[in-house]
């Protein structure tokens, strides 16, 4: 029988949630018995190769590339999960949301106390994705089916969610596994 496929990505995140995926320890061996990874930093597949049962999205949308990848995940995954606080509410990157984008860029590249930038140029290479006006939670961009909060979410919560959903069971997290820090 063909195994269901799982895809993962990190948008505006720190890869902490991906570390938490790996933190399921020896269960990672059970996991690769259960599923095949598709597009994911874990196997370094850059594009989708087949339809996926589950997509795990870390990080919110801070730039246009994040939005493109997130839409691609929505298109290719049956179940889409926001993994961690950044995907759910923007997280630390969203701390810029109260500050106008121009001011952020000026501070980061021109006026910050440790900046050395004699040309006073804000990086504008066309390879660099354009920043959005603010950082958006994933469910404000596409439909998200489940949310696993935490910074990062406990490995146990990820394991429980993925295995329950693969077995078509309802996802019920016990008290200790819903945490926002």
């Amino acid at each position, binding site marked *: 029988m063909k195994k269901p496929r799982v895809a993962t990505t990190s948008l505006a995140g720190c890869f902490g949630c991906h570390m938490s995926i790996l933190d399921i320890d020896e269960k990672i061996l059970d996991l690769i018995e259960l599923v095949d990874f598709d597009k994911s930093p874990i196997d370094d597949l850059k594009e989708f190769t087949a339809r996926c049962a589950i997509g795990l999205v870390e990080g919110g949308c801070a730039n246009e590339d994040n939005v493109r990848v997130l839409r691609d995940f929505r298109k290719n995954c049956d179940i889409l999960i926001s993994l961690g606080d950044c995907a759910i*509410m*923007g*997280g630390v990157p*969203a701390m810029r949301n*109260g500050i106008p984008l121009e001011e952020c860029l000026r501070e980061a590249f021109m006026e910050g106390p440790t900046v050395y930038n004699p040309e006073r140029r804000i990086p504008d290479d066309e390879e660099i994705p354009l920043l959005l006006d603010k950082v958006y*939670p994933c469910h404000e961009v596409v439909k998200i089916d489940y949310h696993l909060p935490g910074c990062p979410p406990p490995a146990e919560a990820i394991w429980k969610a993925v295995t329950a959903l693969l077995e078509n069971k309802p996802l019920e997290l016990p008290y200790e596994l819903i945490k926002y820090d």
Partner: protein
Amino acid sequence: MIKPITFIVDGKEIRGREGQTILQAALEAGVYIPHLCFHPDLKPFGSCRVCTVMVNGRPAASCTTPIAEGMIVESSSERIREYRKILVEMLFVEGNHFCMVCEKSGNCELQALAYRLGITAPRFPYLFPKREVDASHPEVFIDRNRCVLCGRCVRASRDVDGKHVFDFAGRGPEKKVAVNSKGRLAETKLSSADKAVDICPVGAILKKGEAYMVPVGKRAFDRKPIGAEIEEKGTDLQS
């Protein structure tokens, strides 16, 4: 003599005394009704509506509604639970709650309510409002990003500390906790020993130099939901 009053919460008979509110009598009987702006040491204020219950079929804030003989209260039904979730979710999107970097995380009553209600993400869009921080005081700071306008600090400073350091200013989305000086917290009579400092349910008013003292796992709501102590008391009362 104070008149005893018997009423029903979720099918359970509760005995209270005349003059008590639904919330007071329920808590005393070991029945937890989620609440936020209410604090046992302060006069009820009725602002957050988290304590909403159905009283004889109509919604009412249990912290301000006095008990009456034979009253039928519904607190843990599916629809009340859903109302409460909506209210708590609104409190999250109205402010800037970055729990991952908040000193109050694990000991915060708002967060604990969300945990207890099983909220994994709010259904409303985040507003990301612009709010002010005042760290001018040597011992205390106020971070309005996390303020839920519960008015506990206002009541505690006025009624317990006798200083009236805090009050509300503005309306609607502009409403905020103001301090009673022209300028900043440093110019008020606030002291870190004030009740007003200890009583904030969230991480909006905090003492400096005390952050992250308790390790993760040992904080108030890491293992047990908010209200668990009250419910344990209730089980003891019955046995």
